[in-house]
């Protein structure tokens, strides 16, 4: 099993004929994702890696019964693409682009809530369910393997680092979810933890957090009643206040979002908090025993 994305998910790619869309369609198909269609206005009738391209999500969904979409269009057009997906029945929406205006992100996640759509991102690497042989995202294919660890991260490359170290330690993953690095994203640690709670295959959860916001503190409230062990690693110990650390979201503002408050809350909630990424796998192995 896995969360959110399974082998049953029927995926379309919005912006399929662009460079990124084309490349990652190939990668997803290669990984085993059921990519059933693509959308690029005015390109209907073309195909990418054997997958048919449609002018609209509407026609793609009508033809392919897709229920999930991954969006690769440039940020200024991302809101349009997201609504096109949601208004046409897509229930799992992965928003890859970064630099989407916060106002647009708010509009997207608000509408998603009303329509019961799960939004991953924006500014995410996506999500991958190795045991289901499926992914929606831009993560490398070779660093994951099936297993009992659920991973939820804000940041891409750092999560690759940790997922790969888990894989190398023989600790496979149910699903690895990238929440996205923007200030406003579809998921919270809490919402993803709840998904992992319901997944019988997930036996331990790894949280990869960072400075900024208070998502980790809120997650701590829920970890107490989760019934599954949590290992947490948070990046940004060395980050000075008031400076954006790459991610629009990673900023310590007016004393909020510091690592200390986050780690304290998580430790108090019973999570195993490690201070360096290379300590995660060992901690996971420890709690699994």
């Amino acid at each position, binding site marked *: 099993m896995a969360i959110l994305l399974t082998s049953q998910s029927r995926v379309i790619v919005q912006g399929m004929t662009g460079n990124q869309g084309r490349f990652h369609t190939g990668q997803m198909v290669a990984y085993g994702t059921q990519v059933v269609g693509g959308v690029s206005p005015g390109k209907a009738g073309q195909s990418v890696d054997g997958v048919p391209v449609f002018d609209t999500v509407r026609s793609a969904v009508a033809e392919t019964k897709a229920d999930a979409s991954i969006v690769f269009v440039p940020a200024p057009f991302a809101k349009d693409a997201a609504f096109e997906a949601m208004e046409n029945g897509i229930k799992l929406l992965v928003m890859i682009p970064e630099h989407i205006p916060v*106002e647009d992100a*708010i509009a997207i996640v608000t509408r998603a809530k009303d329509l019961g759509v799960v939004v991953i991102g924006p500014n995410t690497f996506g999500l991958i369910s190795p045991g289901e042989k499926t992914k929606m995202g831009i993560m490398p294919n070779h660093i994951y393997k099936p297993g009992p660890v659920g991973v939820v991260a804000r940041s891409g490359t750092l999560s690759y680092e940790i997922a790969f170290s888990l894989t190398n330690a023989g600790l496979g993953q149910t699903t690895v979810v990238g929440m996205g690095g923007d*200030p406003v994203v579809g998921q919270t640690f809490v919402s993803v933890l709840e998904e992992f709670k319901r997944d019988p295959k997930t036996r331990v959860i790894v949280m990869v957090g960072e400075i900024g916001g208070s998502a980790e503190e809120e997650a701590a409230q829920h970890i107490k009643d989760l019934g599954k062990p949590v290992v947490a690693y948070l990046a940004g*110990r060395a980050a000075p206040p008031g400076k*954006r650390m790459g991610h629009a979201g990673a900023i310590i503002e007016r004393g909020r979002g510091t690592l200390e408050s986050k780690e304290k809350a998580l430790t108090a909630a019973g999570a195993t908090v490690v201070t360096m990424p290379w300590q995660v796998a060992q901690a996971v192995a420890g709690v699994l025993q």
Partner: protein
Amino acid sequence: MKQYEYLAKQILAAYGIPIPAGRVVDNPLQAYQAVEAIGPAALKAQVLVGGRGKAGGIKFATTPEEAQKLAQDMLGMNLKGYIVERLYAEGKLNIEQELYVSVTTDRNAKAPLVMASLAGGMEIEDVADEQIVRRYVDPRVGVMPYFGREMASALGLTGTIFKEFADLIVKLYTIYHEKDAELVEINPLAVVNGHLVAADARLNIDDSAMFRHPEIEAIEEGSELEKKVHEIGLAYVELDGDIAVMANGAGMAMATLDAIEFFGGKPANFLDAGGGASVEPTAQALGVLVSMEPKVIFVNIFGGITRCDDVARAILQVKETIGIPVPLVVRLVGTNEAEGVRMLADSGIAAYSEMAEAAEEAVKLAGEGR
């Protein structure tokens, strides 16, 4: 993207929010003329740093002559690392009361948050929680006049100020919404002659939304070096250590700094070379690190989208052109790892596969650490 005070105030005024009489001043003569026209005024340095007043960035002039003299001193001064290029001369207000009001984005609620307080004039973090009225905006609904009345009522306002405040909340939210602001703040929101005036204002625009605001000038903050790296399109923050750092991905870059501190070293910077950067920007970024003249350069790459051979190519390109005159520690794993490592080895650069080992070595080479 922070806006200068005078720009923020111009936008408030354009939306019908009363501001004090004021003029932009580029030279001492204009300061003279400004005070001549609007009377005794504060001369405020237009720089994007907090605590301007305490640092000598705000002076009061009673006469035109005084204003001219003060402007002469202030223009060109260095205020916390920023050169003062422009002043804003603003008429003195007889403030009867100071309130606070702001609209900002709450990332956890995923919604705009409006805050108001009768305790204006100080930073909102210093105001007791029970003195602040907080209301989230439902993005489906936005801010209609009743929302402003509810806040005015919650603050206990009455009469003219009740109406003006309720009205101002709608305008402030309209600015937040139409200008893609992440913060629009009036502090203090002054009561002068029984009416509200925006005595000071802050406006930060969402960087990601600048593309749809050609009317708003892009103001680059930060040091010259930071500006230069931002122009390449990379995320960069100057720190005060001496180990220059490059990594791919913001989280990885943060973790790399953490790792250096973990081993007792001091990072000189944060540099995210991007999740899938190609040869050229990576080489440019590395060039920036070289120009910083650090003790050591540490490159930490987990090749996902980024290909290790591209990173190796970038390193070799810099080595062969501008040269790398300080010790270089490279950690390189992931996509096309073998080829990247071989290319570096051929040029005498050893690559680590473990982040921990590499970070420790970088700290050691910098002569720091435990």
